[in-house]
């Protein structure tokens, strides 16, 4: 004869086990996702990325991230203004030779109303900004992964042309980390981490 109380106890203990197991698995997933994000940071913080995700209403250039020469501006679409658009000088491919304008298809920086400025953000803030639909062009996590792993403009960071340092991780490793971050729930590092990249302010 099965006593009702025993059944309840059993169910409770099973539930307890499930919940605790779930909590424990989640904890592992959280940590792995956040760690994947942290592994992505050397790329995100690299001048090849930061120079267009920089503070101010203009792009930067060089490994020292100095303001772009010639008073170049972001413009409403992130494509420059009037007679100084990105496409005035940048082609859809890199040009041979040192100090020649680099290029990739659709060369641009983030538009003015969603400028995606990463400079000066903590790791947590940067991560949250990436996920913020109002700031990221209404992308969901899958679309963010897509954006970080496929456009030729993003991939240019691995092939930036003569005389420029590429981003510091293989493209395959970076793509794997981005996916790991997303699959793990796109978890952000703890908010306590300090400002990660103030150098280009």
């Amino acid at each position: 004869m099965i006593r009702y109380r025993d059944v309840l106890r059993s169910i409770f203990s099973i539930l307890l086990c499930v919940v605790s197991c779930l909590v424990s698995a989640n904890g592992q997933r959280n940590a792995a996702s956040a760690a994947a994000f942290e592994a992505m940071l050397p790329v995100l913080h690299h001048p090849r990325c930061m120079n267009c995700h920089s503070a101010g209403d203009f792009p930067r250039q060089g490994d020292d991230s100095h303001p772009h020469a010639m008073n170049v501006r972001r413009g409403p679409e992130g494509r420059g203004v009037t007679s100084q658009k990105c496409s005035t000088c940048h082609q859809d491919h890199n040009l041979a030779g040192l100090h020649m304008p680099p290029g990739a298809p659709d060369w641009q920086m983030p538009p003015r109303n969603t400028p995606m400025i990463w400079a000066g953000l903590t790791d947590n803030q940067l991560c949250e900004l990436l996920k913020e639909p109002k700031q990221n062009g209404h992308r969901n996590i899958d679309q963010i992964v897509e954006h970080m792993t496929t456009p030729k403009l993003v991939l240019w960071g691995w092939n930036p042309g003569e005389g420029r340092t590429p981003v510091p991780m293989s493209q395959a490793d970076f793509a794997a980390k981005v996916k790991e971050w997303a699959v793990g729930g796109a978890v952000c590092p703890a908010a306590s981490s300090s400002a990660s990249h103030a150098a280009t302010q």
Partner: protein
Amino acid sequence: MISFSVNKRPVKVDVDPSTPLLWVLRENLELTGTKYGCGMAQCGACTVHINGQAVRSCVAPVSRAAGKEITTIEGLSPDLSHPLQRAWLEIDVPQCGYCQSGQIMSAAVLLNEIPNPTDDDIDQALTGNICRCGTYPRIRRAVHRAAEMMAKGGAR
């Protein structure tokens, strides 16, 4: 063969597609108003329009022009009647004159997009165009003057 239009005239050129548009304009099409200054998009002397947008022709491969409309200084107006050219004459802008085609072609895009530019708009549009003679003060005056002419005469 690469086909495009220059100053509303259809052209076909048989050149290596990586040749900069500048040299195709200057040598194959004999339009020498567009100048070589640096070859690396630093000085703006080679500025032309591709479909109405300013482009440094010294770094743009001619393949980029395929099927597009190119405008050079020679095509800005047939008779110096463009407001910028009239303003350039009125303010007496050029000194040696070498950079002026590029200055005017850049300014033309500026006025197309911002018919009444501020000094800051002019700085954002023309900082890519070097003038070694130092005609900048008069360029600034002439761009404002051209904007006035356009406002009076209606936009072109």
